[in-house]
């Protein structure tokens, strides 16, 4: 099991702003946001709804174009007042992993293929992609379900598979959007445990957007976002069993 090679500085966001609309009706969803996450770190992003959490996530995920600012990902500047990458979809595929509220696995692909899909799309030969998928499934302790369809898995198993999928192309960054929202505290903590484990193992920078009180105490560092501005805070860093 090889740990990923260091991929640089993780995520670095400087002066990111996003304005919707024009003139008098304009809304500044993000105002001069600064953020940094180191490889291997799991950072929380908390704030009330409407505070700009989703907008920030969308900018980070290269779905929306920020108005101003600079984003550096894995050592590479991907945005500086405008996109520096032409193929944003490939960027998302290769450099960013997504974990959603619900597993959102592709129902007509089996577990292995769900995980191997992104590497295959990235051009890897099928055998190598599937091998990598098996590795990750092993690490996440769901390899015994490798040939099953998503509908046959329990909720927890599906969530783990989705995390494996996010890691499949060894992205420097994983964006997790409310991954524990539907879960009870035991399961939620289990997910956080896994995320921390994977972050360390693969040296991935992970940003977890959440308002789940159950897991907020587990973060070492938090970013609190309010009205488009972020404030860095120290977390309680409660240990995870």
């Amino acid at each position, binding site marked *: 099991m090889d740990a990923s090679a260091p991929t640089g500085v993780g995520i670095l966001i400087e002066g990111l702003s996003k304005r919707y609309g024009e003139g008098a009706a304009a809304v500044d969803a993000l105002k001069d946001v600064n953020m940094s996450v180191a490889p291997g770190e799991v950072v929380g992003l908390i704030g009330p709804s409407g505070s700009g959490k989703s907008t920030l996530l969308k900018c980070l995920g290269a779905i929306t174009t920020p108005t101003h600012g600079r984003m550096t990902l894995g050592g590479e500047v991907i945005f500086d007042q405008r996109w520096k990458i032409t193929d944003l*979809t490939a960027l998302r595929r290769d450099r960013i992993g997504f974990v*959603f509220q619900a597993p959102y696995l*592709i129902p007509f692909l089996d577990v292995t293929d769900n995980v191997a899909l992104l590497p295959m799309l990235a051009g890897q030969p099928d055998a190598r992609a599937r091998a990598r998928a098996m590795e990750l499934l092993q690490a996440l302790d769901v390899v015994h379900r490798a040939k099953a369809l998503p509908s046959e898995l329990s909720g927890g198993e599906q969530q783990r598979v989705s995390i494996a999928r996010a890691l499949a192309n060894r992205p420097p960054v994983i964006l997790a959007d409310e991954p524990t929202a539907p879960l009870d505290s035991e399961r939620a903590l289990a997910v956080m445990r896994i995320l921390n484990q994977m972050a360390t193992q693969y040296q991935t920078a992970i940003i977890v957007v959440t308002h789940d009180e159950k897991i907020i105490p587990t973060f070492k560092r938090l970013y609190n976002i309010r009205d488009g501005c972020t404030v860095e805070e120290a977390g309680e860093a409660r240990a995870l069993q």
Partner: protein
Amino acid sequence: MISLAGRDILHAWGKFALTGVGLGLLIGVTLTFAGVYRGIVDDAKVLLANSGADVWVVQKDTQGPYLESSSIRDDVYRDVLGLPGVAQAANVTYLTMQVRGRDGDVRALVVGFEPGQPGEPGFLIAGRRITRSHYEAVADVKTGFALGERIRIRRHEYTVVGLTRRMVSSGADPMVFIPLKDAQEAQFLKDNDAIVNERERTAANPALNRPGEPGLLEAVNAAQASNHNVNAVLVRMAEDHSPDALVQTIQRWKHLQAYSRTEMEELLIAKLIAISARQIGMFLVILAVVSAAIVAFIIYTMTLGKIREIAVLKLIGTHDRTIAGMILQQALGLGVIGFIVGKIAASVWAPLFPKYVLLETWDAVLGFFLVMVMCALASTLAIRVALKVDPAAAIGG
């Protein structure tokens, strides 16, 4: 690389297969309609080819004998026989009428022919050719008559001694071949009541029934009852002689109308088939539109059912072109299944159609390409929807 389209189809194969079968039946109907049109054209061509004639001689200023009725004297053929290049010339009569068999009436084209001459069926599938000069018949299998069956045409009974196939009129009525003299009588001689009536009327006419001239009345009755007309003379040319020259000669100084095989084909196909062709063409267009609509609808619903997955795929890094390709492949796959099912269905039920259905290979190949194009076009609706999906939908509010 996994085929996303293939996996999706495998996953929902029941729905896909069912749609494929439904589409296939529609395509089968479309192919059958095209086959019906080809069959109508083929009927006309076969009618002309089976007569064995190169030139048709008919009444002046008519387009007979198939499109219009034509009546000429039965000694005209002797004049035609003497013209240069003519190998054979023979009288024929055609009349569509009801023929009574064991199991009821059948509508048939009764053909009067001379054995060994043009007008005789070229091949048999059972039985033998006519050996007696009267009261024997050769029938097409579509009449339903069996060998040895006694059938009734007007006043006489005929024994079916031979069977043939693909001998149909341009109106798809099967043909029954009987000796020329019997056919002339059947066509031109009236029924008993009419004959008795005529006789009485002639007897009551003082100009024709003179007391001082015994035998006059009988002679007049005999003249009225005799029939010396036929519908056409069929001509077979000797080798290396062009029918066109003969057609010109006959038209110029024989006061008759003549048509070569090419002209007859044009006449029949153009006039008889024009309306059918338009009808069938319209049906084909309607069926194509309906099939396209069904494909579009099915692919659209399948895509709508995958909106969330599509949003997720886009977000995690699947290019638009990959997603569009998946949808297109599904539509084409549906088309392929539909076409195969349709072609098999059309071939299986074609013989059961009352009209002759001719399924040509080129029509099937063309049909396949059209189905593919139609499916591709039908998929554009779903592709548009898929491309418009916002990946951010995967990320909640």
